[in-house]
Every structure is written in C-alpha cells, then in structure tokens.
C-alpha cells in the first residue's frame, strides 16, 4: 500500500492518490458503502424474476399447477415486492451514490474529504436506518411497498428507518459541500472538475426534494404509526411523496451521467465533446427535476387540472438536459469511433463493445432511449389516463432505473470493487455476459410489461393468487415478461459470480485505473454556473410557484385529515 504523499506548498491538502489502489481511509469508507449497496441489490433483485414467474399464466398453470410460484425467501408477494422496491430503489441507490460521490469528490479534487468523522456518522445513520426498516419488512409489518401511501400503515420502525437513511444522506451531502468549499477557497479562479460540479448539483437537488418526504414521514406517517395522531390525509401525503419521488429518479440518474460525461471519455481515450453544455445540463436537471412531480398524480382527485397541465409542460422541459446529453455523449462516442477507424456510420459499432466497463454504459444508454420515449408518453396527461398504474409504467422505469442507471452502476462497480479489494476483476468475459444478458432480459421484460399495460394489466397486483382477473389480451405479454425474468435471473447469477469471484477468488493485482478526471476544462464555462446561491433561489422560487398551489389546495385541516390509518401488515 502506497502512503499518501502530502506535497508542500500553498495547497497543503493536496493528495496524489495511488492509481491502482486505494488509501486505507478510502478503502474502508467507500468500501463499506459499496458493499452494503451491492448486498442490498443482491437480495432485492432476486425478487424480480420470481415476480415475473408468478405473474405469468404459463408458468403458474404449467409449472405451478395453478397455485402460483412462491417467492424466494419471502412467501408473500407484496412483502417480496416491498423488499424489491425498498432494497433496489432506496437502499442500493442511496448507499452506492453516497460511496461513489465520496470517492469521486476526493479523487477529482485530489484532497481528502473535509470530515471523515462526519462521513462515518452519515454512514452509521443510514445503516441504522436500513436495519430498522429491514426489521419492519422482514417481520411482515411493513407490506406497504416502497411508495408507502397513507393511510396504509407500516410499523413505526419502517418510517424511522427511512427518515434516518435520508438524514444520513444529508450529512454525507454536507461533507461533499464542505470539501468542495474548502477546494474552492484554495483554488480561486479555477473551474471545478465536471464530476464534482454534477455531484454538488445532485446533492442540492436531493436535499431540496427529500424535504418533502421527510415532512411526510415525520409529521404524518411516523406519529400515525405510533398512535400519537389518529387520522391523516392521503392526498396531502401523496403530494409530499411525489415532491420527492420524481427528483429521486434524477438523484439516481445524475451519478450515471457523471460516469458517461467524465469517465466514459477517459475509458475511450477522447475528450468530452462539450464540458460547458454538460454543466448546463446538470444545472437544468437540478432545477427542473422537482417542479414536475404532479405527473405522477394526473388521475388524483384532489389536484387541479391547471396544476396537472403545467407540470406536464415542465416534464417536457426536464427532458431537455437529457436530450442535450444524448447529443453531447453521442458526439463524444462519434469521436471515439472515428479514432478507432470508423466513418460517418460505422463509428456506431466501432466502440469497445467487448469491454464490460464501456459496454455496460452503452447498453444503459440504449435502454435509456426507450425509457426516455416511454417517459414522454407517460408525461402526456392525455395518454396517462390510459396508462396510469398499469404494467406499462413498470416497463418504463425498468428501462431507466434498472436499465440506464443500474447498468451504468454495474460498469462502475466492475472497476470500483477491484480497487476496494485490491484484486483485478474476476472474469472480464463473465462480466461482459452479465451485461448483455441484463440488457436482453430487460428489453424482453420491458416489452412485455409495456404491451400488457396498454391493455390494462395492473401493476403491483399478485396475478398468481386465487380470485385474480387476467384478461386474455395480457397473457402472451405476461409470459414474455417471465422469459425476460428468466434471462435476468441468469444475469443476476453471473453478477453474483463476478462479484464473489472478485472478492474471494481473484489473485492478480488491479489493472484498471479509476477513470477520474482531476482537471477542469481547458476553456472555462461562465462563472455564473458555480454561483450556487442564485440557483438555489431559483429552485425555491420555482417550487413555490409550481407546488405551492397544489399543497394549499390539499391542506384543509377542517374538512380534510379525516382518514384513520389502516394497518398494512396483516396478511
């Protein structure tokens, strides 16, 4: 292990990080975040294929004798569905993002985190929160799914646990802000590397957005579950949840964009096409991802049509940064393809498709195109009336979250886990097979879910239980999702083999450097970009305008708040 060599001079906190290994302090802090994230994912994703089996008439009737296929670990469908959502969408993502952000921040700025003790305190808060929520779910006292809509109630430990995870992530965000500000003070006039710019923007958005769910949990659900208050208002709870719920998906996406914008060019050996437009895209994501959440509430009774229409328009606007990203990354890929001998057309396939780290990101981008198009369809309120809460929606967000985001995180994990362990990736071939099976399985799954949803197949419904209704129109498509599920199960097994193999079986030293850029761009972007105070003011103002009327319409303490809680634990 190389020791850090603090260099003398004005920048006393400068660290030259080792290229092919980690400092002990990094290894423990970042390692534990990533390992908890991957452990959560390992359990959470296992539920998915078995849900597709249970929902498939072919599997249920032919293999299950009409009795349905039991879920692994958990026998109860909705408990397994809660596990799938909470572990994959809330635990895996949050722990992975915090660990990844710590790593990228200190490596990009070439200085240690401003406070290791605060970073550890953040981890402990999040981990205790995870244990509390896991207790409630495992003991069958929190069958409320990962959206936990009131007045269905979970055990209070579920809500306290989620609150601690969020509060912990705020502390982690504060560590990033302090590190960035200390770097800013030491480097006046310099442009911060794009990765750190994006991470700061992501955390600003995250703290703003998660205030909504924190208020919902602390003032409504936690006291209701403890019996301190007797009644609540489901519409207000949904408004507060979706203030948080949509930016949540961008909180997952921005780290994937960090990989596409700052790491993929290094892995391809070309510069990013446009750093400045990239920064503009991250600023737009930070600002426009929150005042759009009513698009999840298009068919809710207690929200005005005007609010629904204006949030629909804002949702179209939040696609702009992703469309800018498509151009920017596309142009970067074209450069790389031409450098590998491609012409106007052939640059598309002249990419390192056999490198799992790159292939993961490219496959993620392809799925994100499907996810983006289906997302614009969801955001169109006229179509949403046909699609809300059908399996179409599940198909859509598996293209984005389980596609673009998770595939990119796999690509990251395949260089980050070797660095944490100090051994090279167990098998590049198996890793590549894992990526492509995931890509194919997810496409089959998404196609089946999407098509069944158009014919009204409902999501979050145990279609393998007695007394359920299944339309003949859904049957072939539900069976197709099971085929996708089978391919994804194979991919999951490959994932376990690669990760466990890297940890326990790999003996060779690390050979892949962390693809971290430590310099800002050659030509500096407008200074306005780093005036965070201005952007925060715009965020507050835009949300007061876009969410204020929605919340005021819902808040009526005389006529509203009359709904008693209902235990969601019974099975």
């Amino acid at each position, binding site marked *: 292990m190389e020791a850090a060599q603090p260099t003398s001079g004005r920048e006393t906190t400068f660290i030259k990080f080792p290229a092919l290994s980690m400092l002990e302090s990094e290894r423990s802090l970042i390692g534990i975040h990533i390992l908890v994230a991957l452990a959560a994912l390992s359990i959470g994703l296992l539920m998915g294929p078995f849900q597709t089996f249970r929902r498939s008439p072919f599997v249920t009737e032919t293999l299950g004798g009409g009795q349905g296929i039991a879920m692994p670990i958990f026998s109860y469908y*909705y408990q397994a569905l809660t596990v799938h959502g909470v572990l994959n969408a809330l635990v895996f993502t949050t722990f992975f993002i915090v660990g990844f952000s710590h790593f990228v921040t200190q490596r990009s700025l070439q200085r240690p985190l401003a406070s290791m003790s605060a970073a550890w305190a953040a981890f402990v808060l999040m981990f205790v929160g995870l244990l509390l929520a896991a207790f409630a779910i495992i003991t069958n006292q929190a*069958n409320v*799914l990962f959206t936990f*809509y009131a*007045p*269905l109630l979970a055990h209070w430990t579920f809500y306290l646990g989620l609150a601690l995870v969020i509060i912990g992530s705020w502390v982690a965000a504060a560590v990033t802000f302090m590190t960035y500000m200390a770097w800013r003070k030491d480097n006046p006039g310099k442009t911060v590397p794009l990765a750190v710019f994006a991470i700061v923007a992501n955390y600003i958005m995250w703290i703003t957005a998660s205030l909504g769910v924190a208020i919902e949990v602390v003032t409504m659900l936690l006291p209701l579950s403890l019996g301190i208050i007797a009644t609540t208002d*489901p*519409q207000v709870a*949904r408004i507060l949840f979706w203030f948080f719920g949509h930016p949540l998906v961008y909180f997952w996406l921005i780290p994937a964009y960090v990989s596409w914008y700052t790491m993929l060019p290094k892995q391809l050996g070309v510069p990013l096409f*446009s750093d*400045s*437009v990239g920064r503009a895209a991250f600023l737009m994501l930070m600002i426009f991802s929150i005042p759009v959440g009513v698009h999840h*509430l*298009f*068919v*809710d*009774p*207690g*929200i*005005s049509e005007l609010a*629904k*229409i204006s949030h*629909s328009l804002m949702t*179209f*606007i939040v696609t*702009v940064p992703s469309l*800018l990203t498509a*151009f920017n990354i596309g*142009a970067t890929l074209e450069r790389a393809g031409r450098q590998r001998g491609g012409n106007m057309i052939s640059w598309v396939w002249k990419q390192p498709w056999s490198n799992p780290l790159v292939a993961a990101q490219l496959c993620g981008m392809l799925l994100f195109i499907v996810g983006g198009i289906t997302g614009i369809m969801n955001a*169109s*309120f*006229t179509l*949403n*009336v*046909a*699609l*809300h*809460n*059908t399996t179409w929606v599940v198909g859509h967000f598996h293209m984005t979250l389980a596609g673009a985001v998770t595939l990119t995180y796999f690509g990251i994990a395949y260089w980050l886990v070797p660095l944490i362990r100090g051994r090279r990736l167990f098998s590049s071939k198996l890793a590549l097979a894992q990526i492509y099976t995931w890509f194919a399985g997810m496409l089959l799954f998404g196609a089946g879910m999407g098509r069944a949803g158009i*014919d*009204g197949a*409902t999501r*979050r*419904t145990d*279609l393998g*239980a*007695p*007394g*359920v*209704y299944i*339309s003949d129109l859904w049957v072939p498509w539900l069976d197709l999702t099971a085929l996708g599920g089978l391919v994804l199960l194979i991919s999951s097994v490959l994932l376990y083999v690669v990760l466990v193999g890297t940890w326990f079986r790999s003996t060779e030293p690390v050979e892949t450097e962390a693809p971290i850029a430590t310099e800002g761009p050659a030509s500096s972007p*407008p200074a306005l970009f780093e005036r965070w105070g201005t952007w925060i003011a715009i965020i507050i103002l835009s949300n007061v305008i876009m969410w204020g009327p929605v919340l005021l319409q819902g808040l*009526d303490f005389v006529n*509203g708040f*009359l*709904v*008693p809680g*209902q235990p*969601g634990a*019974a099975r």
Partner: protein
Amino acid sequence: MHIDQYERYWIIIIAAVLGAFFAALLAGLLIFGVRLPSTPGADYFVNPLALDAEFGAPGLRDMGNGQYTAHIIAQMWSFDLGSDETYKTYFESKNPGTTYTGVDASNQVMRVPAGSRVTFSITSRDVSHGFLIERHNANIQVLPGHIGQITVQFNHAGEYRILCHEYCGRAHQQMHALIVVEEV
C-alpha cells in the same frame, strides 16, 4: 460559452419537437375534450367514515337521454356498485347448470345499455384504491376523503372489468367488478 454549430441545430430540433408534443396535448384537452379525473367543485372533501347523499345509496342512476350517473364506493377488497347481481349469480345464469366457486363470487356486476354515457363518481371508505375500466381510458386514483369523477362512453356491447390498480392490502388482487354493456 461555446456551443457547436450542430449542437445549436439540435437545440432547435428539441424545442420544435417538444413544442409540437405540447401543442398536441393542448389540442387533446381543448379540441378533443380529454378530461382528467377531478373532484367536482362543491363537494371537495367527503368524510369517508360518514358517506351520505348519493354515496349513502351507491349505484347506477338513469338521468334520461342515455345519460347515467354511477356512484361507487371502493373498500378493502371490493367495489360497492350498489348492485344485487354478483359474479356468482351472473356467471351461473350465463352458464346454466354450473356452480361458481371463485373467491370473487360476491364481486358485483353492473349492467348498462350500449351507447350510454356514464359519469362515474368514486370514493374510498378506507385506503387508497385504483379504478380502471378495461379498454375505456377511465383511470382514477381513488382516495378516501375525495371524489374522483370521470365520464365514459360505452359504445360496444361486452364485458369490461373494473380493476383496482393500487395496492390496498392482502386481497388487493381480488378487488375487481364487472360492467356488462348490453346490446339494445
């Protein structure tokens, strides 16, 4: 700030495409009359524990001229359509000599003549439910304390399920009802 020439073209294309999409949405709303489910003005809140007025006696009401209203109460785990006809009586009369034994035997059936226009008003007695009519673009998030309202035109005879699309507890998957659109 430098923006490449092609990137400028791309930004113009983005603006044009999104503008066209939004114009199409507004056209759907203003010209083709697409409406989103909303709470009718005066009755903004209802008390889910004391449902009265039309919800005191839910069901279909003939308003004349092919217009109907239907007041429906969603509850764990059934739709109260105010109808005496159940899956058991409906399917047994349709297939004489058979006995219907499904766990959903007591789910209700509502009959409307083809060509009728039904305004559904729906609320919940307990938790969040969903309301979706197969192949009819009717979709409401049903919340206790609020009334969701939507008007549906039934042109073709057939059997159409009302499905609960929001997880509402243990037997959520059994929560559905049947609309039978009859030839006239």
